[in-house]
Every structure is written in structure tokens, then in C-alpha cells.
């Protein structure tokens, strides 16, 4: 399944996700760690260990507190 990964502040990336892929796998495909981002589906955060069942996700990057 093709999933559009919209990393906020960066370009969208199309990821070819396998049948069992989790949101963490999507992040790994765009070289991000679940510890530095939050994945939103329809504006709602989702646990990264769950299987992907949508074709579009938004990724919010963490920013240092400063």
C-alpha cells in the first residue's frame, strides 16, 4: 500500500508500506525515530506500534525546548 507521509516543514514522501507495516515502519522509511516525532492520523496521535490502515499520515517533529 502506498502511504503519503507528510513530515511537517518538509516535503511529502510516498512510502510503499508492506501488509504488516506499523507506523514505526513508516517512520523508519523516512529515517525518523518514534522518539523524535508524533504520528497523526486525521489530526489524532496514534501509537507507533500499530498497523498502518490509512493512506495518509502527518508527522510532527520534536523541537528542542531552548
Amino acid at each position, binding site marked *: 500500500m502506498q502511504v503519503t507521509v507528510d513530515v511537517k516543514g518538509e516535503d511529502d514522501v510516498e512510502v510503499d508500506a508492506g501488509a504488516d507495516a506499523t507506523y514505526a515502519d513508516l517512520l523508519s522509511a523516512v529515517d525518523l*525515530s*518514534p*522518539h*523524535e*516525532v*508524533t504520528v497523526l492520523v486525521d489530526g*489524532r*496521535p*496514534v*501509537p*507507533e*506500534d*500499530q498497523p498502518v490502515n490509512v493512506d495518509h499520515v502527518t508527522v*510532527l517533529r*520534536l*523541537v*528542542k*525546548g*531552548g
Partner: protein
Amino acid sequence: MECSKCGRDAVMHAAYSGAHLCDAHFVESVERRVRRRVREDNLVPRDATPEDPETWVVGLSGGKDSVALTQILHETFEADPRIELVALTIHEGIEGYRDESVDACLELTEDLDIRHEVVSYAEEFGVEMDDVVEDDPEGMAPCAYCGVFRRDLLESYADEFGADKLLTGHNLDDEAQTALMNFLEGDVAQIAKHFDASLGPFDERADGDGAPSREDQEHFVPRAKPLRDVPEKEVALYCHLRDLPAHITECPHASEAYRGEIQQLLHGLEENHPGTRHSILAGYEELAGIVASEYHSDADDSRDEADLGECERCGSTTTRAVCRKCQLLDALDA
């Protein structure tokens, strides 16, 4: 996926505990961890009373960490007359960055109706970070100058506002990184100092469990980091779910290369071995307490006291004739 505590949809998975939590249980869990840390570190002394309250100055940058900390402390102590909160914001003079985050601080402190003070490098030192970065007379990373100036102002204004404690929003990732950096640099004295300055619990002899507590810092306002049990990602999620006015832009001068390397390392370890950050920090704190006790008993107190004096220029407590901040200001011709 359902919340481990109720039937609602989970918004997060904490691999280190195995829990899946919904928004309400996640928010509650973050707040519980901060309150437990406040208790375990004995931040509220037994002798604080409504007539003689403690003043806590919170370093409020407007970023997610300090905003979450200020919000949680406010809600925890709003009805407790023993604790008074003052928010302190430092304006470094960074175009397109700090003005927006100061707005976030104003919005939060107006919402919460707490005292808020803003001090700037420009007014205090006659410099702005954007110019410091251009000049760079010492050939250092921007954060090296900025850290010296920020610590000086946090410390001196906390003192001026009569603070009993200075609280900052360092999260679990920040502290696990610092712990690992100190360890990898082999800096045992720094580890002991870290314990006495901001990590160790305050002494409550009535507890009597024999665990090490920090030594009194006569010359400095004691610091504390009650957010340090909460991973950085969870602090951000907390702000997002509670719709807090946190400013989320990276400082344009951010440049801590070594810390970034350690951060990547920790993310990788955490992925393969969930709980690594927690165990690094728990073990480090225990070791730091032992090391600090060792240094306390070895120290020749009279000599230690003699090492600390007043800066010839500004009067700050320092081990040098002229403090580091004044040296940097000299180099900048400020």
C-alpha cells in the same frame, strides 16, 4: 488499539512500560510522574508554611518543556499557599525566534495568572545573540556563549526574586544525554557537581532512609528538574493534547554537535532496548549520589570555601578573579 486502562482509543505506546494510553490517561500519567518527582526530591520542605511560603522561580522559555512544567506546577500548587511560582523568561536577542516564544510565555502566564518577568541580554549585557554569533571572538559554538549568559541571568534574577529554588524543564532525554556525556567524558567531578547542583533530593532527615542527598549550595539558588522522568516526545505530546501555547521552532543558532550525536545513539538504543534512557538516568543518579558523598567527605571545606570568591566586575560567585560571563563580555567588547 485500546487504552490499557479504559476502552478508549490509545494515542500513544510507551514501549518501556508496555502501556497503551488514551489521551486522558496519558495526560494523567505525565502529571503523576512530575508530582511524584517533586515528592521524591523533597522539593517542598517541611518548614514551608502559608505564612512563610517558598518561592519557586521557573525558567520559562516558551518551548514545550518549560510550558508543560509551568502548567503542571501551577495546577499542582495553585491551591497550596506554601508555594509561590514566578516565571522568568530570558530574551537572548535572536531574530525570528525569541519574540514568538516570549509571546507564548505571555499567553501562558496570563492564562494562569502567575507573576512573569522578562529579562534580556540586550538590557543586561548590551549584547544580542545574533551579533555574538557574527563576532564569535572565542571561536566557540553559539550555545557555549548563550549558556553562560543564560545561567548568569537565571541565577541572578532567581536570587533577586528571593527564590528558594530554580526549576527548569529538562526532560528525560536531556538528562540521559547529559549523564551519558559526563560519563563518556570521564568527568567524575562533574557528575558529583551535577548531583549537588540539580539532581539530588533535598535533605529531609526525618525520612532517615540513608540515601544520599545533595549538599547545601550556599552561594547558589538550588536548582531542580521535576520533568526529568518524562521522555521528550511525551512532553511534546502532552502540550499538543492539552493545546498549550508552546512555541515550536528550532533556535536558528542551535549547534550542539556532540549532544546531537548522543541523542541519535540513545534513540537507536531505546528502539532496540526500550527503557534505556530510564535505566541510564536511574543508575547515573545513584552513582552520582555516591560520588557526591565521597567528594563531600574528602573535601577540605576551608579550601573549597576559599576557592569561591566574588567576580571583580559583577560580584557574581566564581572561582576566578573575573567570572566567565564577564570574560566573554570583554571579548565581545560589550
